[in-house]
């Protein structure tokens, strides 16, 4: 299962073993769904269930950020603004226009995807650090706009965002909400594997390594750059909408400050840029650590920022890199053993 995280789909260790691996992968997914389905019942109290929801939302965010940053290599630090756009669209539609959650979520995703395309526009002209600063400016602009606009709740935020309801049943407990978030998170993770293994994913990787060579190989650079931003925006919009509708249904511009972006960035960096499983592990670890250290919030940014700096310095491939190295070593040893047995 973990082998999926490597850049290439795991080649079968021995010839003829392909159906076996496929079954194994299917089994792994089924087992994963099984474990995830019973997880909230094992949680001790409601707060832990809330934390589970939060972790899954962060997983969606991190996986989405990985697409634009890890697969396509576009340096964006404005991802949090996309989440804000998703959350506010969903909240405004639900509170002011009476949209049900099941309509507000896709609408929010659509609007965020559009915003993602707009964020992608500077990426035609800007590279690397330029792009990073442009997206930083955009993120700050979005936040300032939200916190100064009375229609969007200004600095008070939006309250009483209705939770989703299903056949007249209000999903306003963290337990029931879990079963809204979990399938979406799972679908998001699965979808990102599909992207990675498709033509699009390969185009993204070519773009990341060398835009010039990619263009020479016939890849439409502008199209794929925009596509990367739009895809990651879909994830961000989904996560934003989910975060807005979660009980107690309250959003505030301060939830979308750049400090939150540091946390989000830490998930992806710690997990290893471009590594899906790494990103998921990063999201889980960082969310839990963030929650455990809430009492020391004065020092949080200091520690998180320092961990980012040190990870970049000493562990540039992150947790995902360690997993990869372990798998590669194991496969190498297995191959050598097989060879030795044959001889």
């Amino acid at each position: 299962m973990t082998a999926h995280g490597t850049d290439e789909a795991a080649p079968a260790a021995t010839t003829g073993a392909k159906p076996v691996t496929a079954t194994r992968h299917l089994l792994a997914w089924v087992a994963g769904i099984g474990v995830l389905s019973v997880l909230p019942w094992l949680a001790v109290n409601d707060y832990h269930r809330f934390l589970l929801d939060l972790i899954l939302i962060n997983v969606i965010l991190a996986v989405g950020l990985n697409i634009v940053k890890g697969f396509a290599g576009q340096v964006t630090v404005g991802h949090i603004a996309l989440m804000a756009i998703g959350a506010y669209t969903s909240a405004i539609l639900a509170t002011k226009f009476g949209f049900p959650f099941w309509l507000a979520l896709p609408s929010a995703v659509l609007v965020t995807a559009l915003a993602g395309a707009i964020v992608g526009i500077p990426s035609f002209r800007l590279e690397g650090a330029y792009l990073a600063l442009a997206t930083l400016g955009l993120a700050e602009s979005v936040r300032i706009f939200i916190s100064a606009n009375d229609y969007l709740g200004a600095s008070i935020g939006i309250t009483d965002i209705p939770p989703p309801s299903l056949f007249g049943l209000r999903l306003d407990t963290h337990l029931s909400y879990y079963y809204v978030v979990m399938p979406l998170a799972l679908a998001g993770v699965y979808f990102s594997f599909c992207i990675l293994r498709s033509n699009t994913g390969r185009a993204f990787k070519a773009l990341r390594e060398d835009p010039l060579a990619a263009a020479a190989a016939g890849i439409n650079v502008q199209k794929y750059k925009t596509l990367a931003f739009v895809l990651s925006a879909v994830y961000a919009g989904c996560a934003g909408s989910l975060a807005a509708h979660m009980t107690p249904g309250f959003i505030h511009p301060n939830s979308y400050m750049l400090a939150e972006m540091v946390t989000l960035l830490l998930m992806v960096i710690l997990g290893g840029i471009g590594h899906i499983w790494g990103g998921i592990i990063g999201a889980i670890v960082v969310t839990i650590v963030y929650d455990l250290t809430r009492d020391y919030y004065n020092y949080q940014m200091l520690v998180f920022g320092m961990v980012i700096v040190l990870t970049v310095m000493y562990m540039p491939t992150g947790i995902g890199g360690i997993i990869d190295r372990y798998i590669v070593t194991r496969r190498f040893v297995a191959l050598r053993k097989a060879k030795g047995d044959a001889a």
Partner: protein
Amino acid sequence: MSYFIDLVIVGLSLGMVYGLVAIGISLIYSGLDVVHFAHGEIYMLGAFIGLWVFNTFGLPFPLVLLASMIITGLIGVVIERVFYRPILKSGGGYTVAGMAMVICGFGMAFVLQNIAFLIWGPRSLPFPVTFGMPIEIGNLTLPSSYVWIVAAALVLMSALHLFLKKTRLGLAVRAVAGNKDIAYLMGINVPLTISVTFGVACALGAAAGVLVGPINYVHVLMGLGILIKAFAAAVIGGFGSLPGAVLGGLLVGVVESLGAGYLSGNYKDIYAFILLIVVLMIRPAGLFGILAKVKA
């Protein structure tokens, strides 16, 4: 009309401050091939150090400015040596390592911000310098703090110009900005020169922070906004060009001031960004036509 002139004067003096920070960003870009993301925090740190020197030793303002520049410059050199040097050794510019540098700078910005928060707290602190009476020219009255900002910024910019053009170290800085390998061959101590470049850039950022202190309050979150504005100024003027950075800074300052005066003060911080996007759409090389240096 006088309202308009007032706005332009405020814009020009703030623009000088943006220009100083933008020069720093441009210098670092030319020396290290990276955009320094934590430069706004250096500016904030400079303002706080200036305030500390002012409150503790009660020095006159020019000496406070100088002391803050020296201390912040040294802090900058230490940060560069300890954190940025190892990352840059594995390749700078727009490689994947370039992304690492952006992320590292972003992390460093929040580390510095948090350190300042732990030392000086969350409150906005006043910088109680008295500059004397407003100056009157014709029927215009100029607050002398604005005159001070413009004068000090001009002095610093000319000092930088003289340093770059007239001294041997300045020549080395320009050579390293041009081509590191050839600079090595010419017998220049490139690592030392890069440190000097970084230190000078940080000192200029600190000077901007100290200059803006008396007209705005000094607070922990002041760094982020200036980073975006100074970056906009540097891009508008053509990245890597020092006169361009100053003119870009003045343009950003005036546009922001006019926007705040005539449109809406709430969205004051967004105008610089809109200007940046417009310039990038029309003239990506900046108004002064110097093509951005992109590493192959």
